[in-house]
C-alpha cells in the first residue's frame, strides 16, 4: 500500500556488519543516537532516585554514600555521555554534511572511530558505575578524589579520558568538513546558522578537551602512583586542579548550549516563515561565545581561595560572555516579528528554549556578581541555574531538533498533537522542578546534601513533583516516535516548507545525499510572503 520503497541510506545495505562498519555519516549519527538515548535514561534514573530521596529531610533511601554515588553518576553520565555528544554527534553528523551539500564528512573512517571511542568510554564508565560507582561528584575535586575517595575513580576517569578523544576527533572532522567540503555557491555567509553553531562548538571541542585529557591524566597519576602534583601534603595546590578542570569545563557548557542555539536559529525562521533577523549578528555571536567562553572559568572559584585580583577579572569577563547570548535571544524574538507563526512541536520546544534559556542566562548574571556568588555558590541556586541552561536550554533544543529533522531522518511523520502535548508537559514539569530550587538556593540549602533542615522540605516536595511530570514529558516521545517508525505516514522531502539544502533531497535521503551535487544560489531562510525560496533553487 506504500509507494515502491525507494533506495535510501537505511536500506542501501542490510545486516549488523553494514551498521557497525559503516562510514556513512547518516548511519553513524543513528548509532550515536542509540548511545545517547541509552545514557540519557541511565542518567535520568539517577535523577529520579535523587528527587525521590530529597522528598524527606532525613536520608532514608539508602546510605549517604549511596546518595553521593547517585548524584556523581547523574553528573558524569549526563555531562559527558549525553549533553556534550547529544546534538553535534547526532544532528551534527546527520544534517551538517547535507546542509553544506557534501556527500559525507571529510574523514568518514575517523567519524566511525569517534563512535567506537565514545562507546568504549561509555562502557568503561558504566562498568565502573555498576561495580560500585564513584562518590567524588562529577568535578573530581582534589584532594578528596585522589587520596580520600573510595569508589572506582580510576576506572571512571579513564572512561571519560577515552570518550574525550571521541569529542576531539568529532570536532576536528566538522571543522575540516565545513572548510573544505561546501558545495559550489555555498559561501560562508550562505551557511545555515546550525552549521555556524556546530563549527563554533567544534572549535571548543578541539581546543578545550585536550586540557581535560591532561588534567585527568595528572589526577590518575596522583591516585595510582601516589605522587603529589596537587596534593597539599607535599605543598602542592589543590586550586591548580580546579583551574585546569574548569578551563575545560566552562567551555564544555558552551559545547552543550551552542548546538541547541543553532537548532533554535533553524527552527524559529522556518516556523515564522520569515528570514532570521540579524543573520550576521547571530553568526558572529556564536563565534564570540566560543572564544570568550575560554576566558571566564574563574567564576567557578570565587570562594575557592583564588586571589582577589583573579576573582575581579573573571567576574567582569563573565558579564562580557553574556552579551552574545543576549543578542541571539533578541534576534530570535525579532525574527518572529511580522512572520507567519505556526505552532508545530519544534516551534513549541523553541518557545520553551527561549524562555528557559533567558531565565538561565539572567540567573547566571546574578551568580557572576561577586558578593551574591559568595552566598549562593555551591547551593541549589547554582543547581537551578545550570539546569535551566542545560535541561531548559540544551535538552529543549535537542528535542526541538529531533522533532524538526525526524521526518528527514526516518522518512516518517509523527503525530503532531502528541508531540505538542509532550512539549508543553515538559515545559511546565521543568519549571515546577527547578524554580523552587532557586528559592532553596537563596535560602542557603547547599548542594549534594542527602539530608537537610526540615524547613526546606516544602520546596523539595514541589521539585520532586515537578520531576515526575518532567519524566513523563521526556518519556512520551519514545512512544510516538516508535509509532511513527512503524506506522507513521511517509514524509515528503520538505514537510515544514524550510529552505535548507537538506530539504531539497528526498527523505530519508539516499546514501550519497544528493543525486547531483547541488549549487547554492541564495542565502538560507529566504521567504517571500511566506513562501520558501530554496537555497538550491527550485529543483
Amino acid at each position, binding site marked *: 500500500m506504500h509507494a515502491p520503497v525507494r533506495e535510501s541510506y537505511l536500506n542501501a545495505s542490510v545486516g549488523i556488519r553494514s551498521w557497525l562498519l559503516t562510514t556513512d555519516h547518516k548511519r553513524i549519527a543513528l548509532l550515536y543516537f542509540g548511545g545517547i538515548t541509552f545514557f540519557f535514561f541511565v542518567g535520568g534514573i539517577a535523577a529520579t532516585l535523587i528527587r525521590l530521596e530529597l522528598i524527606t529531610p532525613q536520608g532514608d533511601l539508602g546510605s549517604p554514600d549511596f546518595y553521593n554515588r547517585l548524584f556523581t553518576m547523574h553528573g558524569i553520565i549526563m555531562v559527558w555521555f549525553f549533553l556534550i555528544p547529544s546534538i553535534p554527534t547526532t544532528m551534527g553528523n546527520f544534517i551538517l*554534511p547535507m546542509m553544506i551539500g*557534501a*556527500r*559525507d*564528512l*571529510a*574523514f*568518514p*573512517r*575517523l567519524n566511525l572511530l569517534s563512535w567506537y571511542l565514545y562507546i568504549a568510554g561509555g562502557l568503561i564508565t558504566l562498568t565502573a558505575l555498576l561495580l560500585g560507582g564513584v562518590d567524588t561528584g562529577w568535578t573530581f575535586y582534589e584532594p578528596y578524589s585522589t587520596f580520600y575517595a573510595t569508589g572506582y575513580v580510576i576506572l571512571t576517569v579513564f572512561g571519560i579520558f577515552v570518550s574525550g578523544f571521541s569529542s*576531539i576527533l568529532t*570536532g*576536528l*572532522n566538522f*571543522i*575540516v568538513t565545513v*572548510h*573544505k*567540503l561546501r558545495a559550489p555557491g555555498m559561501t560562508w555567509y550562505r551557511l545555515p546558522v546550525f552549521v555556524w553553531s556546530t563549527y563554533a562548538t567544534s572549535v571548543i571541542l*578541539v*581546543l*578545550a*578537551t*585536550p*586540557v581535560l*585529557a*591532561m*588534567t585527568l*591524566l*595528572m589526577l590518575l*597519576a596522583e591516585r595510582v*602512583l*601516589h*605522587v*603529589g*602534583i596537587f596534593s597539599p*601534603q*607535599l*605543598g*602542592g*595546590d589543590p586550586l*591548580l586542579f580546579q*583551574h*585546569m578542570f574548569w*578551563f575545560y569545563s566552562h567551555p564544555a557548557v558552551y559545547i552543550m548550549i551552542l548546538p541547541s542555539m543553532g537548532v533554535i536559529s533553524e527552527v524559529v525562521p522556518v516556523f515564522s516563515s520569515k528570514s532570521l533577523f540579524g543573520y550576521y549578528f547571530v553568526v558572529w555571536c556564536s563565534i564570540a561565545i566560543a572564544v570568550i567562553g575560554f576566558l571566564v572559568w574563574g567564576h567557578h572559584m570565587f570562594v575557592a581561595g583564588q586571589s582577589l585580583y583573579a576573582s575581579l577579572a573573571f567576574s567582569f569577563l563573565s558579564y562580557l560572555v553574556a552579551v552574545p547570548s543576549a543578542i541571539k535571544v533578541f534576534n530570535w524574538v525579532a525574527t518572529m516579528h511580522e512572520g507567519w507563526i505556526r505552532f508545530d512541536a519544534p516551534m513549541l520546544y523553541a518557545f520553551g528554549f527561549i524562555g528557559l534559556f533567558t531565565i538561565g542566562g539572567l540567573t547566571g548574571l546574578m551568580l557572576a556578581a561577586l558578593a551574591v556568588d559568595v552566598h549562593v555558590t555551591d547551593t541549589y541556586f547554582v543547581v537551578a541555574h545550570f539546569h535551566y541552561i542545560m535541561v531548559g536550554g540544551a535538552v529543549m533544543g535537542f528535542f526541538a531538533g529531533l522533532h524538526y529533522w525526524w521526518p528527514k531522518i526516518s522518512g516518517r511523520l509523527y503525530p503532531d498533537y502528541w508531540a505538542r502535548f509532550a512539549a508543553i508537559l515538559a515545559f511546565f514539569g521543568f519549571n515546577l522542578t527547578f524554580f523552587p530550587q532557586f528559592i532553596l538556593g537563596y535560602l542557603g540549602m547547599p548542594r549534594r546534601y542527602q539530608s537537610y533542615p526540615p524547613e526546606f522540605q516544602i520546596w523539595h516536595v514541589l521539585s520532586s513533583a515537578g520531576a515526575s511530570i518532567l519524566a513523563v514529558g521526556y518519556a512520551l516521545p519514545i512512544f510516538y516516535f516508535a509509532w511513527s517508525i512503524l506506522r507513521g505516514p511517509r514524509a515528503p522531502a520538505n514537510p515544514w516548507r524550510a529552505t535548507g539544502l537538506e530539504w531539497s533531497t528526498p527523505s530519508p535521503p539516499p546514501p*550519497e545525499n544528493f543525486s547531483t*551535487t547541488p549549487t547554492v544560489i541564495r542565502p538560507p531562510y529566504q521567504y517571500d510572503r511566506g513562501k520558501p525560496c530554496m537555497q538550491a533553487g527550485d529543483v
Partner: protein
Amino acid sequence: MSEATSPRAIGIQYATLAQEREAVTLGMWAFLATEVLFFGALIAAYLNYRVWFGSDFIAAARMTKVVLGTANTAVLLTSSACMAMAVTTFEAGSKRAPVLWLAATALLGLAFVAIKATEWWLEYQERLVPALNFDLSRYGGIAEIFFVFYFCATGLHALHLLIGISLVSWLAIRIGNGSLVPGGSTTRLIGLYWHFVDIVWIFLFPLIYLAGRTT
C-alpha cells in the same frame, strides 16, 4: 592519523585531489593544535607552580642534567632537519634519498630516547624518581612535585617520539618497497608530526633544564 588514501582513488566526499590534500593538511594541523594544548596544559601548570613556589622549585630544577639535556636538544633538532630533507627529496621524486634521510631521522630519534633513558637511570640512582624511590626527607615535597612534572613531561614526550619513530620507519619501508609514491600527503603529514614533537621539546628544554643555573 587521518587516512592517507593513495592519490588515485580519492574519497567519494572529495571532488578533486587538491581538495583532499588541503583537507588532510587542515585535519593534521587541527590535530597538532590539540596536541599543543595537551602538552600546554602541563607547561601552564609548571609555569604556575614556578611562579607560586619560587626558589624551592628552581632548586629542584638544578638537579637535572643540563649537559645531557643540551645534547638531546641538538639530536632532536638535527633529526628535524633530516626529516625535512626526507620530505623534500621524496616530493622531488627520488627514491633512495628519502629512505636514507628517514633512516637518519629514526636513528637520531632512537639516540634521543637512549640519552633520555640514561638520564632517567642516573636520576633513579640519585633516588629522584617519585613513586619509585623518591627520597622525600632529603629533597622535600616541592622537589617531588617538580620531578613529577619532569617525568610526566619527558615521559609523554618520549612516548610521542616512539610513535614518531615507528611512523617514520613504516614510511621508510613503504617508500623503499615502492608502495608509496609522491602525490599523496602521507609523508608531509608524518613530517609535520615529527616537527611538532621537536617543538614540544624546544619548549620543555629551557623550562626543565635551564631553570636556576645561576646559583
